[in-house]
């Protein structure tokens, strides 16, 4: 769209904006990757006792190695029609099941830790399986998983995400029912049922979020009817 509508000056500005957004996102992701690896995996499971200087060094090497791996994964994008297809495929594999886990964890206090883990794993595996099936045997699996044989790449990604979320939620619920919750776990402020929700009754109608939520819902329904 940029090359279609923008003259050289605006095209440069648009590209700058894109690159700035990518850099900001990448900086955050690299930092998160180094932190998660060093403090959530390396320190608790691989080397528990080491001076802080060692963990700082590990974080720096992790950042460098992570960047090199990410450059390598950029070549995988060449297998897809566009970077949007690639990003949506990844999101459907990892973000969609995570949404199911987080949603259940926030709204249902009964959910257990093993249930969260196995539900998330099942969702990820299910999404990857759906992706591989639709990629290597599209004539057979696209009509089943995407509900129509004419589904485009992005539509297939959307249904991948849907199935991933559904599998995650189902597995999480089933595992929760056969596992016992931790009786010492303090969920105050973390789960809907254990949190005191501030009252909005003293606010005028126009300042209540539920009123504007209803407005947005009505507009959403109207637009869906118009553009169905």
């Amino acid at each position: 769209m940029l090359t279609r509508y923008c003259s050289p000056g605006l095209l440069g500005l648009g590209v700058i904006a894109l690159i700035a957004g990518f850099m900001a996102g990448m900086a955050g992701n690299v930092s998160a990757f180094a932190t998660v690896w060093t403090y959530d995996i390396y320190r608790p499971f691989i080397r528990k006792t080491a001076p802080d200087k060692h963990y700082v060094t590990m974080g720096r090497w992790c950042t460098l190695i992570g960047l090199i791996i990410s450059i390598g994964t950029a070549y995988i994008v060449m297998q897809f029609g566009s970077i949007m297809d690639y990003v949506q495929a990844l999101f459907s594999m990892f973000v969609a099941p995570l949404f199911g886990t987080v949603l259940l964890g926030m709204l249902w206090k009964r959910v257990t830790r093993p249930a969260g883990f196995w539900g998330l794993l099942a969702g990820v595996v299910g999404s990857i399986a759906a992706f591989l099936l639709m990629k290597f045997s599209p004539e057979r699996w696209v009509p089943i998983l995407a509900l129509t044989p004419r589904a485009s790449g992005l539509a297939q990604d959307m249904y991948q995400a849907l199935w991933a979320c559904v599998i995650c939620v189902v597995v999480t619920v089933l595992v929760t029912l056969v596992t016992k919750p931790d009786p010492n776990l303090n969920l105050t402020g973390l789960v809907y049922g254990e949190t005191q929700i501030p009252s909005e009754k003293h606010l005028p109608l126009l300042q209540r979020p539920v009123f504007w939520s209803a407005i947005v819902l009505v507009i959403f329904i109207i637009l869906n009817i118009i553009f169905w």
Partner: protein
Amino acid sequence: MNNDAPLITVWFFVGVLLLCYGVLIFAGSWYYAANPPAEPVVLANLHIGVWWGLLLVAVGGIYTWKFRPKRAI
């Protein structure tokens, strides 16, 4: 901290950047409008770059003037 040092906020740099972008985009789009290529972009007759350049110059100028370095009180 030296009280005589001028106070420079990040918005001053934002204004300078917008001003520079505006000048470059305006100049480039003006030249593009005066010397159109054989295959121009869609809706090139609207000269979007010229208007955006002027807008960026205006906003950048306002920010540069409003947030120019001042001496701390």
